[in-house]
């Protein structure tokens, strides 16, 4: 099974689970159309299309795809760092979390090889944090997250 077949199966499974959940929605006697009416149509169409993708993949000619060298470990690392940043924001606050995030992500994407490289990382992290904080909080009046642990 190729990429399309796997995608189709994943979407088919998810849409069937959600379709099952719509059957639990209670019909309101006051309105002729219940809350599950439209979701069932949409999920039904999704399931049919996903099934079609699986069938086409099964019946279709197998294509040989060009093999590309892909740095999945770096992709995973970026998602993990971003996830940690999002998780840390309510606890550390925007300023601390953003400074750390900027520094860590820059390092992960391109590890500094000398002292100058580390200075660039630190300065970029500091300037980005400071500029975004000042511009948004003071000039655009957009409140940025405060930390529950740091109150900063």
């Amino acid at each position, binding site marked *: 099974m190729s990429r399309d077949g796997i995608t189709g199966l994943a979407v088919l499974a998810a849409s069937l689970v*959600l379709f099952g959940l719509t059957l639990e929605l209670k019909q309101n006697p006051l309105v002729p159309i219940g809350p599950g009416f439209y979701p069932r149509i949409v999920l039904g169409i999704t399931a049919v299309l996903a099934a079609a993708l699986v069938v086409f993949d099964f019946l279709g000619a197998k294509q040989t795809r060009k093999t590309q060298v892909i740095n999945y470990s770096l992709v995973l690392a970026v998602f993990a760092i971003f996830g940690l940043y999002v998780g840390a924001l309510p606890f550390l606050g925007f300023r601390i979390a953003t400074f750390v995030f900027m520094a860590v992500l820059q390092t992960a994407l391109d590890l500094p090889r000398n002292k100058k490289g580390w200075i660039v990382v630190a300065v970029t992290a500091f300037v980005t944090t400071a500029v975004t904080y000042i511009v948004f909080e003071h000039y655009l009046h957009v409140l940025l997250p405060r930390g529950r642990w740091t109150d900063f």
Partner: protein
Amino acid sequence: MYELLLAGIENVLQAKYFVPLALGTLIGILGGALPGITNTMTVIMVLPFTFGLEPLQGLSAMIGVYVGGESGGLITSCLLGIPGKPSSIATMFDGFPMSQKGEPGRALWLGIWASFFGGLLGAIFLIGTTEPLARMALEFGPWEYFSLFVFALSMVAGLTGDSITKGLLAGAIGLVVTVMGNDPVMGQPRLTLGIRFLEGGIPFLPVLIGVFAFAQIMSDVERIGKARDPLTGFVAPRLVVSHAKVIWEILSRPFLLLWTSFVGVLIGVLPGIGGSAANVMAYDQAKKFSRHPERFGTGTPEGIIASEAANNSNVGGSLVTIMAFGIPGDAVTAVMLGALTIHGIQPGPLFISQEPKLAYGIFAAYVIAHFLMIVILFIGVRWFLLIVTVPKSILFPVILVLCVIGAFALDNTMSNVYVLLLFGLVGYGMVKGGLPLAPLILGVILGDQIEINLIRSIMTDSNPWLFVTRPISGGLLAAAVASMAFAFWQHRRAKRA
């Protein structure tokens, strides 16, 4: 109409609107010039800055980004042979060979001036057609709206990506996203999976930001360390050119300019297709109409003029659909739609009559942005070439921080940031699964409206045949079927070729 337009121009020339417009144009050019940074990414980065501004200030900045981005993309296309963004691909076919022949200034400025003239032709279309189309849409009932949105979705699903099934599936996934949360009739929670922040539904802006930002950034991240950076060791060339000669080269081909601008506008009006298709299709048209098609690809000015006039006039077409019908023509106008809704303004048929000052301000900003684009490029094009060498390791973290601010600032809650992260994973997963992103986004944007109009029409009259027998609704559904049939035919032809 012209009084309103003049008042709009006068309004936008005030410093408080002019400065965001100029900054937006500059940022758009820079974003457009950076390979791998699309207009959507740039406008997403600018979005959080617009939250604290007046609607016209924010929209001026976004229109500046849009216009500047369409032109900025040609810089690296012409000089490096790397398209700054997908809508500059065809520009590269002749722009780069012309540069290699020792005329980089001519290649670049042919593109810039063609963008300018194409954009102004797009503006004439935008200003002339938005109001009549909006007036026509005022006659629509829920049946027509439902059919219009289905038509828009079918167009996008059919014409994007390499498979119609995948396009339709991506659109359907977008619709699934909108059924999570409270139902629009009685407010009953549905499909929230026990997650509290889903009870209020999933707002489309964090979805859009997450999907596009991560899909693009991760597609670049996965190549870091595995492929050589094409900008390494790049030295900016001298760009000496006679502007009068370049302008004459363009204006002495009026049919080419008008026709390819028309192609751009037409593709802009069709939802979700975007500047990249306009760029390539206009190039193809120019080649078909040329007396010397064999010269295309070797550095002919017609190729540059056609592709750049089309991608800038395309912006005018995209703005028509959002202002007349409330349907985004592409991802950039989808972000603009989000910016409007944040300010409590709903684009659609009533927009131009209820918000004439804002609507004509948008028209004016679009026109003025083209003049600003010329001035900014005239002053700084050589410097912009140096800025494109900014390392991705600095750029990507900054973009992600701006994405977080954009999502958080929507209503000052972390839930939108969680949606951003979730749909970042979904977006990247979809790219890896080969599913196109544009239908997903249009599904998310139109899903609520499709449901509301479907329910409204059934509650008004339960006869389902009304969708087909009402002339406009039936026509739109027929157009949806025709667009799918066309897409099937196109895909079959492409497979055979």
